[in-house]
């Protein structure tokens, strides 16, 4: 069943592909007429156009579909990222435009034809499941280039082959692949020859002189320091060579793993700050050598989590194209939950949708009637929830709203709920009273079962303490309450010690009970909103600032070596001294147009600006781009276009351009 399906869809794919081919590709100035037929922009510019395209492109013969409905759905949302089906790329247009422009410049060289030299490595970063790879693939189809992908293959052939001469390490293979791929004109025979590299090509190479890019997603083991060093050397090597003709740009895709709010995150930062070596984290700094990252050859484009509006649209399209009858479709509520809990991760959203869908299919018909057509949200939550999702929201609400027996009911509760609350309160016993000298600590019986919270908590206590720390000020009425909460947070921090970082059983209880006890009762409702901890942003900033301190120190040492008499003094400066003492000097150097300028990154620590809190804080559940906002962003896409160009070119190019003339 499955092969047939894929065959048929391949056929359609070809049909679908032919459409964009009529479009003149790669022109920087896109006329609106062209855009209409462009799969990427059409989607977001005119909804109807995008839909039409999707339907036209992926219509299946209704006969086969009816029979293979279940299997069909599976293959649709099966975990392999089937980019055909994501042709309505749920990525912000401007982002796609950025990437497209980069490719264009890499192949054509931009307006002056000079940019080709600097468009060597493109790094796409962003959370997992934000369609980074898919964007590249879709663009590959649109702009008609082949994607050569590196895959770390198993060394099965080495198992039989025991002779040492023919042994090459996994990294050597990678090196070979990489060098050949980026150099050679005609790649196909070569790649097939080196059988160990399981590189895959999109089978679209009809014309021999078509363009290639190299896509690195499955990186060699960067966490191993010597492999990392060799990888860096390979990249430097690539950048030092002039681009081959036709150029083969390299795209590296890195899914960030955000720090998780555990004790060792902090450690990681400090050890990196001091030794310049982070452990166990693959991010852009470990993959790309620091000097390249600040240099002109590497462009970094960050992908944001997919906005809920776009995500919902993409899921709806997927549903409408791939399930045959309305019957088996998940209801709107289900879709809402999926979108909400996916956190901008489209892959996860599709997974969850598929999981939710299974109940709607096959046995669904009889059961669904009873349930009134939707799957209980609690069940969905238990499937889709990740950190920072609804459960966390509930957990924080439970702790921070501090509900106790005898709280006045809010005006919005219905009579039925009020009745139920009353009944529950009757069942609750009053707590044993405290002796008179402790009367100030007496509280009414709490409705929060801390043990239950502990069992259901989606996050560990250190992350919870960050959340509480971020949010508690909205819920307190006076300084005394603040004092008690901070006291409890500090107790939690100090009671851990080195002995049990991960599994301190007391933390959660002290944290939640302490907070409950400290908060006023009842908590004044003033429309509080939960905010994500800013801790991680600051951690990130600190990390960057430390990196720039290192850069500056290196620069200092380097320039001091030129004037020999001073070198002993400046070389001994510690990072701390550089950061604290040199701010003014660096700023002054920036102003004067001398020959040796400090690295531009120094601004990260020498020019720290105050930020208003409102700008940076992210709300917990509802951080979405509104439709109006999205459309306004689209409208000023052209102005953004110009501005973005400026940003990317930066200072380096201007000066280099002059040199070349």
């Amino acid at each position, binding site marked *: 069943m499955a092969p047939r399906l894929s065959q048929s869809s391949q056929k359609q794919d070809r049909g679908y592909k032919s459409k964009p081919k009529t479009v003149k590709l790669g022109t920087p100035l896109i006329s609106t007429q062209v855009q209409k037929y462009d799969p990427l922009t059409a989607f977001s510019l005119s909804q109807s156009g995008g839909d039409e395209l999707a339907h036209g492109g992926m219509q299946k013969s209704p006969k086969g579909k009816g029979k293979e409905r*279940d299997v069909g759905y*599976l*293959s649709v949302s*099966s*975990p*392999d*990222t089937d980019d055909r089906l994501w042709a309505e790329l749920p990525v912000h247009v401007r982002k796609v435009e950025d990437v497209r422009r980069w490719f264009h410049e890499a192949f054509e060289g931009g307006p002056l034809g000079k940019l080709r030299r600097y468009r060597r490595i493109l790094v796409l970063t962003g*959370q*997992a499941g934000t369609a980074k790879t898919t964007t590249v693939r879709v663009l590959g189809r649109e702009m008609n280039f082949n994607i050569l992908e590196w*895959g*770390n293959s*198993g*060394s*099965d052939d080495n198992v039989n082959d025991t002779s040492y001469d023919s042994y090459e390490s996994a990294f050597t293979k990678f090196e070979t692949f990489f060098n050949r791929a980026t150099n050679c004109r005609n790649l196909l025979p070569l790649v097939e020859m080196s059988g160990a590299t399981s590189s895959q090509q999109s089978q679209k190479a009809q014309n021999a002189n078509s363009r290639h890019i190299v896509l690195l997603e*499955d*990186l060699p*083991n960067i*966490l191993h320091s010597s492999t990392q060093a060799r990888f860096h050397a390979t990249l430097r090597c690539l950048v030092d060579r002039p681009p081959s003709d036709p150029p083969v740009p390299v795209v590296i895709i890195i*899914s*960030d*793993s*955000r720090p998780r709010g555990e004790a060792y995150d902090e450690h990681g930062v400090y050890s990196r700050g001091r030794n310049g070596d982070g452990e166990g984290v*693959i991010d852009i700094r470990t993959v790309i050598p620091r000097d390249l990252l600040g240099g002109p050859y590497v462009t970094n484009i960050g992908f944001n989590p997919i906005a809920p509006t776009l995500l919902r649209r993409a899921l709806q399209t997927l549903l409408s194209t791939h399930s045959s009858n309305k019957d088996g479709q998940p209801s709107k509520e289900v879709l809402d939950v999926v979108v909400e809990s996916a956190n901008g991760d489209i892959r*996860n959203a599709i997974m*969850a949708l598929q*999981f939710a869908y*299974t*109940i709607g299919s*096959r046995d669904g018909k009889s059961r669904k009637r009873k349930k009134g057509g939707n799957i209980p949200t*609690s*069940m969905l939550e*238990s*499937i889709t*929830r*990740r*950190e920072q999702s609804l459960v966390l929201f509930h957990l924080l609400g439970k702790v921070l709203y501090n509900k106790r027996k005898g709280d006045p009911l809010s005006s919005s509760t219905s009579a039925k709920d009020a009745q139920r609350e009353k009944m529950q309160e009757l069942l609750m*016993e009053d707590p*044993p009273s*405290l*002796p008179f*000298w402790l009367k100030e*600590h*007496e509280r009414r019986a709490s409705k929060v079962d801390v*043990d239950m919270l502990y*069992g*259901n908590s*989606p996050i560990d206590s250190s992350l919870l303490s960050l959340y509480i720390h971020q949010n508690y000020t909205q819920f307190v009425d006076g300084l005394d309450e603040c004092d008690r909460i901070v006291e409890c947070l500090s*107790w939690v921090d100090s*009671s851990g*010690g080195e*002995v049990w970082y*991960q599994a*301190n*059983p*007391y933390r959660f*209880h*002290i944290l939640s*009970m*302490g907070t409950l*006890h400290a908060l006023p009762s009842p908590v004044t409702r003033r429309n509080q909103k939960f905010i994500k901890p800013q801790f991680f942003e600051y951690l990130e900033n600190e990390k960057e600032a430390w990196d720039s301190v290192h850069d500056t120190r290196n620069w200092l040492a380097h320039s001091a070596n030129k004037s020999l008499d001073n070198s002993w003094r400046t070389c001994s400066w510690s990072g701390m001294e550089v950061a604290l003492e040199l701010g003014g000097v660096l700023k002054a150097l920036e102003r004067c147009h001398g020959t040796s300028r400090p690295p531009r990154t120094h601004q990260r620590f020498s020019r720290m600006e105050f930020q208003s809190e409102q700008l940076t804080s992210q709300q917990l559940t509802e951080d979405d781009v509104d439709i109006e906002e999205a459309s306004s962003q689209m409208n000023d896409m052209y102005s953004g276009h110009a501005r973005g160009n400026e940003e990317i070119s930066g200072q380096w190019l201007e000066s280099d351009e002059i040199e070349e003339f």
Partner: protein
Amino acid sequence: MSTSTPYELPWVEKYRPITLDDVVGNPDTIDRLKVIARDGNCPHLIISGMPGIGKTTSIHCLAHQLLGDAYKEGVLELNASDDRGIDVVRNKIKSFAQKKVTLPPGRHKIVILDEADNMTPGAQQALRRTMEIYSNTTRFCLACNMSNKIIEPIQSRCAILRYTKLKDQEILKRLLEICEMEKVSYNDDGLTALIFTSEGDMRQAINNLQSTHSGFGFVSAENVFKVCDQPHPLVVQNAIRSCMKGDVDAAMESLNDLWEQGYSAVDIVVTFFRVVKTFDEIPEYTKLEYIKEIGFTHMRILEGVGSLIQLAGLIARLCKKNMKPELFKV
């Protein structure tokens, strides 16, 4: 009496559920797994939760129900005891994924990675592409204690199921079933004690049941605590009651009692914590203060001072919490 055959399996293995219907707890999630088992459309899964709540068991049941007789060929299981470095992910898992196996239509091979949070980040990175490339033939089921130890790109590729702690009634039900089948004689206190000592961990509850049964032949509270070698919570409860009255002598007496029975300082302090957090007679404020003190003492004990004097200090501090502050003025 229990050893009718010389090679008896541990009951944990003997009564390990074989079908999803027998798995205890988390009814919603299990229902969903049952649907998957019937439909055969298994997404990549991550199941996370505390030890002993049926993560691995439910994955096994799912695999059995999905693959039936083909289980042997169709399942690759790796747990923390296997080598799971990068090479294994690159070689073993890949060659398994490439292997051709005849399976019932619509079914997939399954790779079970138990204790996946112990895999190195490097190995996890190597896994993520493999998951995608072979997903049309192979599905991955990961079990782990902390889902946040799994790197984000893998989480993004999986449906995450979070198992919650088992409820006391759920454990009780299963224990009763086993008692029935093994003809164990018990009283209610004994079962309560089993549930108290297991703290939501089914495996531990069943193990303790078996050891109590084979050791004493009768499951009562005293026997359970003897077998589990844990201080009797009633004694601890008495000590805490005395503390609340500010009666240092009585509390110390109970403590000495425990100490002389040979319990280690960690055992005692852990039992204090367990008792305090579920003890209804303590007001909220006192409970909070007590937990703070107990946690602090636990930390000191872990740092190496597991002496009686630390515990006595704990008792003294607990007593002081409920005494008039004027008494301490000189």
